[in-house]
């Protein structure tokens, strides 16, 4: 098989290059729909991270999230810890940021409801039972200028709770990591799995 060496490919009728080949081996492909592909990162598409068994550790960090990302979906599948501290989601740019979160979280059960605000992370109000198995998703969407808007719900069927959380956080720079931990920081994950999707 022979190799065609060139830097740009275009249709004769196109006003710009359809494919640009960079010296580092990456390619930028521009289509009518605006989809571009650069290196191994597919922009305009959804990329799945690697699912993590949330069965150990006091926090789980998803790192190296690409700079072009504009939406992140965090998925919880039967996630539990060995204590009663709330789950906490934090964002970071280089390192995880522990302040500047605005919003609140409510827990709804068949006969009661409760709500709490947060500031050190997106703290997910729920039954706060060690046996709770949380299922659901949270999305973090980039509004602009490093301002991220979070919204999501979790259910804990076994303890009869649904959690609704909304908030915002402006990161100090371009977001590149998401942490899932607990408010007290000492409870250990003991069941379930967590993964993220990212897109931009």
């Amino acid at each position: 098989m022979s190799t065609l060496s060139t830097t740009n490919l275009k249709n004769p009728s196109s006003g710009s290059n359809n494919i640009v080949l960079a010296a580092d081996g990456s390619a930028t492909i521009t289509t009518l729909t605006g989809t571009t592909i650069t290196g191994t990162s597919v922009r305009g598409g959804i990329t799945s991270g690697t699912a993590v068994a949330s069965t150990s550790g006091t926090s789980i960090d998803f790192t190296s999230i690409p700079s072009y990302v504009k939406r992140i979906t965090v998925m919880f599948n039967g996630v539990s810890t060995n204590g009663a501290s709330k789950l906490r989601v934090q964002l970071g740019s280089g390192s995880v940021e522990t302040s500047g979160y605005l919003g609140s979280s409510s827990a709804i059960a068949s006969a009661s409801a409760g709500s709490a605000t947060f500031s050190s992370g997106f703290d997910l109000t729920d039954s706060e039972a060690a046996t709770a198995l949380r299922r659901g998703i949270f999305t973090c969407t980039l509004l602009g200028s490093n301002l991220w808007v979070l919204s999501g719900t979790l259910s804990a069927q076994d303890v009869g709770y649904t959690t609704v959380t909304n908030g915002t956080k402006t990161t100090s720079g371009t977001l590149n990591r998401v942490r899932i931990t607990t408010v007290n920081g000492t409870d250990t994950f003991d069941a379930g799995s967590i993964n993220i999707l990212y897109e931009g």
Partner: protein
Amino acid sequence: MDRIEVNVITGEQVTIPLTAEEILEIQSRPAPVPPVPLTPAEKLAASGLTVAELKALLGI
């Protein structure tokens, strides 16, 4: 205490022991405030029942 770190590009997953500084920060966090018990009046209000409805329910 350990942190699990997953690189979303490479899929590499590593378990990292927390540093002494991180453990100190965790230990310095304030203890959660226990919820304040509801008063009987608040419990009644939360139930959505009026005093008259409660009396009728109890037959008094």
